[in-house]
């Protein structure tokens, strides 16, 4: 495969995978939703879960995006230093998004700031958003696709606390935000929390927390325990599907952290809706792919 063929193959895979992400929820999210559905016993909660699963079935049958808000497209790229297209990924992803917008079809969700014009192809200033991590000596790339919908982006917030507010301040911030704004963001939610020393690091980590598979835990035992306590606590609030009350509130709570400044505790919060369109793909140097989030998917 020459360089141009590699490029075209990469664009093709990523365009199709982006479309795929809008149609099929990842394996872990689906099985968590099935578990949560079983816990509900009120008529209203059952009606909502029935609608959700019927809708997912229709997405499969009709080959259409399961939610009309296919979001602003974000790619979280972990690129090996020896991946052949390392210098061209950004350009290729911009092309992939434009192709995906037509194939999907995806909703036009890139509005230029100040000009206030929708670009009509989901590509705009710094959009698709690309986050980079470098993997030394690897010749592969792992790409997380996230469709950042408007509804589930609205509860997002970040704040720098004074240290004496402690981790208690973090817990309070998360609960206040979820019970006031989370209820409109299509619960059951996935809650991502970032804790760090400054606001942008905490915010970014809160989004990265949403990319972790359900059932994974924070790498620090205290962090893992706090995830469990907040998850149980939020579930005890009983927000239910669609915020219409029920037995549960969240699909999970994930925390990611960076060492903080002695004088600050920054906390960031991101939420994912029940239609959590987050996918992961691995592409090798010879442009073979493996869909990690959706086992066995054929693009």
């Amino acid at each position, binding site marked *: 495969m020459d360089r141009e063929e590699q490029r075209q193959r990469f664009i093709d895979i990523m365009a199709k995978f982006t479309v795929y992400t809008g149609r099929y929820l990842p394996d872990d999210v689906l099985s968590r939703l099935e578990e949560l559905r079983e816990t509900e016993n009120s008529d209203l909660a059952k*009606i909502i879960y029935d609608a959700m699963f019927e*809708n997912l079935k229709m997405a499969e049958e009709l080959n259409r*995006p399961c939610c009309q808000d296919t979001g602003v497209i974000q790619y979280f790229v972990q690129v090996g230093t020896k991946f052949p297209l390392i210098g061209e990924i950004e350009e290729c992803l911009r092309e992939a998004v434009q192709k995906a917008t037509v194939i999907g079809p995806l909703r036009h969700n890139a509005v230029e700031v100040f000009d206030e014009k929708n670009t009509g192809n989901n590509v705009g200033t710094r959009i698709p958003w690309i986050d980079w991590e470098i993997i030394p000596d690897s010749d592969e790339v792992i790409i997380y696709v996230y469709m950042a919908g*408007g*509804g589930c982006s609205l509860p997002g917030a970040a704040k720098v606390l004074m240290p004496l507010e*402690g981790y208690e301040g973090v817990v309070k911030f998360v609960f206040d935000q979820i019970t006031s704004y989370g209820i409109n963001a299509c619960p059951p939610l996935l809650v991502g929390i970032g804790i760090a020393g400054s606001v942008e690091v905490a915010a970014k980590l809160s989004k990265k927390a949403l990319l972790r598979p359900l059932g994974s835990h924070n790498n620090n035992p205290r962090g893992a325990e706090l995830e469990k306590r907040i998850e149980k606590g939020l579930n005890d609030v009983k*927000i239910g599907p669609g915020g*219409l009350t029920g037995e549960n509130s969240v699909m999970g709570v994930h925390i990611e952290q960076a060492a903080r400044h002695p004088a600050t505790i920054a906390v960031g919060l991101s939420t994912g809706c029940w239609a959590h369109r987050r996918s992961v793909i691995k592409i090798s140097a010879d442009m073979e792919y493996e869909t990690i989030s959706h086992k066995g998917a054929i693009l």
Partner: protein
Amino acid sequence: MSLKVINTPIKDEDLESLVIGDIIYLNGYLVTSRDDVHQRLIKQHKALPVDLAGKAIFHAGPIMQEIEGQPGRYRVISIGPTTSMRMEKYEKEFIAQTGVKIIVGKGGMGLNTVAGCQEHKAIHTVFPGGCALLAANCVEEVERVEWLDLGMPEAMWVMRVKQFGPLIVSIDTKGNNLFENNKREFNSRKEAIVEAICPYVDFLE
């Protein structure tokens, strides 16, 4: 819990007996109106290109596709509700000026909308969030589009729908607000839960 079908044009008496938590279905005209449409009418005082009196609006930004060989004709691909609270700022005025009777969206709305609904005999309802294909399936025809210069999500899409629902009444004509009631309940549970977690997070040395 009552279950009924409502047809446009909608009359006051179609809505007066409904209470929060009821489930209804809609037949007739449903027109998408979200942030920019509210902004144009209320803040910029532009005349709406669609008469909404007696009709229903949908807080939604759809994916529409132009039908091949029929320029200006569209089919709906995917259309689900968007967060209604974003329109709270202008909804009371919007109801007063348009005579719209049913607002369909997602999540709750606030005091302004409650007042508008009470004064003008209108209701706010929610369609299950994220269920955009269920909703698309209830659309018989996309009759026309106005203000397409706002872009696909913000334009006014005029649709005829059949058995559109389930629509859960969240604000009725009597001043009741389902989500505010729920929120009060959630917040009353929250305090004790947060307090119970705090002793376990005393990590500072």
